[in-house]
């Protein structure tokens, strides 16, 4: 079984319009197509794993975004689907995020472990 590592770095880019993150989404879809997929959240994207996000309330005049993105729940759904989700520990610390603030099932790894994670996969997709 092929194993792919999907690295998400750029965060909250078009997530309101898309109602999700496009790379979390396609990683989930690729997993459903068969291969093993791991997602590595780094840089600002580590915040996707913080529990309790609320992006509701956006309106432009009478137009409302009635279904806002729920990135934390999307991460949880990825994990439920069998996608391993890792976050870079130092990137969490740089942003003042404690590991206890993350949704369950996310695996913090150190920057020094990232190269080893690359070695465990057939292809690395750094979006």
């Amino acid at each position, binding site marked *: 079984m*092929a194993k792919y590592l999907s690295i998400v770095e*750029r965060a909250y880019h078009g997530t309101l319009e898309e109602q999700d993150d496009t790379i979390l989404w*396609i990683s989930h879809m*690729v997993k459903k*197509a068969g*291969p093993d997929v791991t997602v590595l959240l780094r840089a600002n994207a580590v915040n996707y794993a913080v529990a309790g996000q609320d992006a509701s309330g956006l309106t432009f005049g009478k137009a409302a975004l009635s279904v806002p993105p729920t990135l934390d729940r999307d991460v949880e759904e990825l994990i439920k689907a069998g996608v391993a989700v890792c976050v870079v520990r130092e990137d969490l610390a740089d942003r003042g995020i404690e590991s206890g603030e993350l949704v369950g099932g996310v695996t913090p790894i150190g920057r020094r472990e990232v190269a080893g994670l690359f070695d465990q996969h057939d*292809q690395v*997709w750094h*979006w």
Partner: protein
Amino acid sequence: MSNKTLTLALMDPPYESANSTTAFRLIAAALQKGINVNVFAYEGAVALPLRTQVPHPNPIKGTTAEEQHHPITSAFISALFEAAAASGAKLDWVNCGMCVDERGATEWVDGVRRGGPGDFAKFARESTNTVVIGTR
């Protein structure tokens, strides 16, 4: 002809960054060597092969569109399909269908087909390697 296949995943729309140009150069070089190429165009990249693109003039320079030879990405993609035919390599370009629908970006040059993430997964599985060129 090589038995190698290269897959590229592209995300950038035309005229926003040099990423598309880089991708086209990689595709052209691979095809020239007889390497088969798969392209999965995701999000804004589905606009790259739009057949409704038209060259425009440059009012600053006072040049017409013809004089300016203003480039359009769909013409580059048609040329890549021609290069594939000439080299005997295969170019398979898939536009993500949902990305197409949300943009109304439905009219493409010949050779481009509609697909989805399942095609990307298949491409990756069947390729020598995959190059992801994401939006930055």
